[in-house]
């Protein structure tokens, strides 16, 4: 093997590891490569003695929060969904109650399909009677509102999905 081939191989292996690929076959013309990683899917590192991940995590996800809210809410599973490619989630910077508008009956700050700018107010999270305006940290199109009006949210909980432009 030549030096630059080993370099190529290194790059290939890094790429495979990053993408959690266990086996890789390539055949092209006279070139055939076959790579198989060892045992428990290599880089993934399923830490299966991690108690906290082992056990039904009803307490860790915002399920109890959701349950505490009067309004029907999206399931924690849906909330926990990994963001799809190219979608940015605006997260709650504080614990509180989510409101889509500045007052009951008033129009929502934003609706799905709106184009928003960085710094534009998306919603309010009320904490200790204080109305905290939550601003977008990205410019783009609102493609989903993840929580319901009046729903309690915890720190770091995704509020809106925005497709950046």
């Amino acid at each position: 093997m030549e030096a630059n081939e080993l370099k190529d191989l290194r790059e290939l292996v890094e790429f495979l590891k990053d993408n959690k690929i266990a086996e890789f076959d390539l055949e092209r013309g006279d070139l055939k490569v076959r790579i198989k990683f060892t045992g428990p899917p290599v880089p993934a590192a399923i830490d299966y003695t991690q108690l906290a991940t082992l056990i039904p995590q009803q307490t860790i996800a915002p399920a109890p929060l959701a349950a505490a809210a009067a309004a029907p809410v999206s399931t924690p599973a849906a909330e926990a969904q990994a963001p799809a490619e190219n979608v940015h989630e605006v997260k709650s910077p504080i614990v509180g109650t989510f409101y889509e508008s500045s007052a009951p009956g008033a129009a929502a700050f934003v609706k799905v399909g709106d184009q928003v700018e960085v710094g534009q107010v998306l919603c309010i999270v009320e904490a200790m009677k204080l109305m905290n305006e939550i601003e977008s940290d990205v410019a783009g199109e609102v493609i989903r509102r993840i929580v319901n009006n009046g729903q309690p949210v915890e720190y770091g909980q995704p509020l809106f999905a925005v497709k950046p432009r």
Partner: protein
Amino acid sequence: MFRKVLIANRGEIALRVINACKEMGIRTVAVYSTADRNSLHVRFADEAICIGPPRSAESYLNVPAVISAAEIADVDAIHPGYGLLSENANFAEVCRASNIKFIGPPPEVTRMMGEKSTARQTMKKAKVPILPGSDGVIGSVDEALEWAKSVGYPVILKAVAGGGGRGMRICRSPQELPDLYNQASTEALNAFGNGDLYMEKFIERPRHIEFQVLADEHGNVLSLNERECSIQRRHQKLIEEAPSLKITQQQREEMGKVIRKSLKDIGYWNAGTIEFLMDEDGKIYFIEMNTRIQVEHPVTEMITGIDLVKAQLRIAGGEKLTDIIPQPIVINGHAIECRINAEHPEKFTPSAGKITAFNLPGGNGVRVDTAQYAEGVVPPYYDSLIGKLIVHGKDREEAMNKMQRALDQFIVQGIHTTIPLHKKIFEDEEFRAGNFDTKFMERFFEREKAKAE
């Protein structure tokens, strides 16, 4: 009793409070920072709410975040544990304003006891023995000699404007006093622009003794007797035990009376600890009061059979001490606690990281309070206590032997812990004889160093 309680803490004390609530049929709400997402206090609470990023100031110490979580989860009460917000009178006031019961004393009392000089004056008024001090500037060498004579040597001269040891002199005889007075005054003047001095009685080899108290909201106060906490390193307790070898039954009863009266006068309620220094003659002097549950509360639980955290909850629920605590309080055997910290056992540098092996000791008379587990992670953001190993034996000898075999079976790999240090302390003759004081660890390290050479 409360329907639902939020625990505004983390680690072993959060789990300790959760356990007490569960055993009383109270629903529990944990709060956590993003660094503690996989912690057992989160895992074992009925509900859990993330309140902020890793840094305590933005999560566990963030009053609005904690109160918001309490409002969202709709709890009746908040237990603050120890440390963090537990002695923050403002927090207790916000709880009151938010109509959430704070499980601890009223904020006014917390504030009063948090001010060292106010606490001292309050206790003095209530006839609790306090460390003799001049209570004001000593204006001359003659005045100093007179005051020292009245309390006996040694005494310590301190700069009124002082701090950091400057303008401070320990004085052991009237012969050396004049020179020391002048040196201290000059030093204080140079350092702080103020040469004024005051004086205190100085204890060469003090023991740290503290009394556990419980008080209900109806004016009833109980002393649950003392703990001995002299094994400290830089004012951090390492080993605590109960009862103290140096407190006589008579002293115990006398202190009980004094404490009952003083806390009733103050209007104290819930659990608290009154800390004393004991001099070489066995006399004790008030130093400060902690208005919360303490790390070392289990040693009192082991010898009295009283669950202090359950008592806190019931007191906060409005119950009377006579309904909570079977009396008289009897001391049964001897209990010792070792604080297991994630620290290098010699350098004391914090040791955060992933635990790779974790074996807890068990069996007769062994209690472990921990929120750690195999493959758990010790985050670098919080204090280093990862567990408490408590043993209960029929006497101090049995308790020490039990601690030794339990320490041998307490295995933590992946991070450093103080377990090896504890093992050595339990082999130390001075420790085993019980003839120690708060300077013990200094002597111990010197002996260890000498051995190594």
